């Protein structure tokens, strides 16, 4: 699948400044650099609607949204989040569209996907 056209684009001047402007309505713009020309997408995380941009992974979109906890552990219920971001540590495993153990750091966002920390019947 060719996804090269969907990659985020940074403009030189804006890439160094925190983006305080409104850009297609992402809530936590404090953490996003201004990257114009991207298509906004929406997905849900535990039922909450998350605005993101095409080309972002689920883990990054959630991080930009301020959602750092991606799952709670089985044994002690500890929060865990993005750790290695290259698909090695498996800390970011989430449910995506009813499929278990998907790596949020490797999975690209798309419109309407349903992401959950835990499985709901």
């Amino acid at each position, binding site marked *: 699948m060719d996804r090269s056209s969907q990659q*985020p684009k940074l403009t030189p001047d804006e890439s160094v400044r925190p983006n305080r402007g409104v850009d297609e309505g992402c809530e936590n713009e404090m953490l*996003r650099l201004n990257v114009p020309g991207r298509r906004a997408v929406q997905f849900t995380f535990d039922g909450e609607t998350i605005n993101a941009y095409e080309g972002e992974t689920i883990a990054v979109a959630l991080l930009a949204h301020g959602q750092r906890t991606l799952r709670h552990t089985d*044994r002690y219920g500890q929060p865990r989040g993005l750790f290695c971001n290259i698909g090695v540590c498996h800390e970011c495993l989430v449910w995506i569209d009813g499929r278990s153990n998907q790596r949020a750091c490797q999975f690209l966002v798309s419109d309407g996907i349903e992401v959950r920390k835990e499985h709901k019947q």
Partner: protein
Amino acid sequence: MNRRQVVIVGAGPAGMAAAVTLCREGVLPTVIDENPQSGGQIYRQPRNASQQSGSNEVLKDTRGNQLHRQFQQCREQIEHLSDNTVWGIYSHRQVACNGPDGCQMFAADHLLLATGAYEYVCPFPGWTLPGVMTPGAAQSVVKSHGVRPGKTAIVAGTGPFLLVVALQLHNAGVKVAAIVETARRRDLWRHCPGLFWDLAMFAEGAGYMRRIRQAGIPMMWGQVVTCAEGNDAVAAAVVAPCNEEGVADPGQARTIPVDTLCVAYGFVPRFELAQLAGCEMEYREAMGGWIPKMDSHLATSIPGVWVAGDGGGVAGAIVAQLEGTLAGLAIANSLGRLDTATFQNRYRKLSRQLAKMHRFREALDRVYQVREGLTKLATENTIVCRCEELSCAEVDAGIESGGTRSRTLKVMTRLGMGPCQGRMCWPAMARRIARKTHQRVEEVGQFSFRPPTQPICLGDLLADNQTLSQLTDRPTVIEKSVKNQTL
């Protein structure tokens, strides 16, 4: 069965260089890579022209541009399967992968493993908190996605990579509270002469140091992050000076508030596929741990299986690219596409370059060595196996009751039995066992991988009868209800 002449796993510098080299010799390779775009972790794709020519020095990354261009030029000849995870290697170089089109299996005449490396993190109290991540993770969040991982960060660990990441975070608008480097400044002076083997690299490093200073980022030499504090996410890092062995002095610790803590102590080769392919392995501390045994042409002990880049010993992108080229030439030579005289000629040139890089690296390794004392950072309650949630005390108890080898300890405690299959915990735990039982790390043994090396959906596997029939000779009965479960 899909047969292919050459399958390359990984599209980082080594895999790309090998693919380009093969194309030039008239061999059409198949490249399988987990990421949406080629470049691997280090040569992440440049985004657009304006960024490349922009005023921002660090987010503008021209390294690897030439290789990207060459790879693009050959794209007609290369079968590039991006977004595809290789999860198993079976006998006769059969490669099982899983991607958007489901599971596929290829039988390769030649298999080049260019799997790269991942960052080594020593367990310390609080390292499982969200907001603690590897410097590489923070870098890719900024570079690939234009998202700041947080507002205030500390970049800690050891190695020149910390400087690169700190500067990139700074330029993206993250406040970098400090770079915490375990090596002491005097280590740098002592081994400075060895760094002159590669003046260009030396100058690059010096340039980074200067820009760190100009950016006003405090550089803390000879210090170590001993603890991450916070309830639901990291809120502060405890930093203390350490001695030559890396043992921290808690008396002089201080707390720095941060919302992002990036920690790594170098890199570990990703050798899982080489192990599954049956390659003979050896332990080389300076290379990052277990690596496949290779001859001077990068052939492993299994005929037709080759290894290039950090997966065969951590040495960085430039060496990886040279090795990729070398492996490509060697494969072309063994396919009869390149005559031996030409091959030998080009091989000699490449190996001279590699030898020069090697001497530079040896000096760098001595400055930024992984220090013994780091294994002492974990306290009794520190989770050391992130997947199975084992505390240091539980693992220590396992070691004391006879789990002094990798296999026995795994069976006794479940250490490394989670989805990461020991990638994260094992490098640190092998050192811990070795220290506690007075063995050498290689005596503790490798941790063994099982396919699938990454979780895959049973449904994907079931959908591909061809792959399934390769894997089992018995009729497989799997209930529909487990189709969405992952192995």
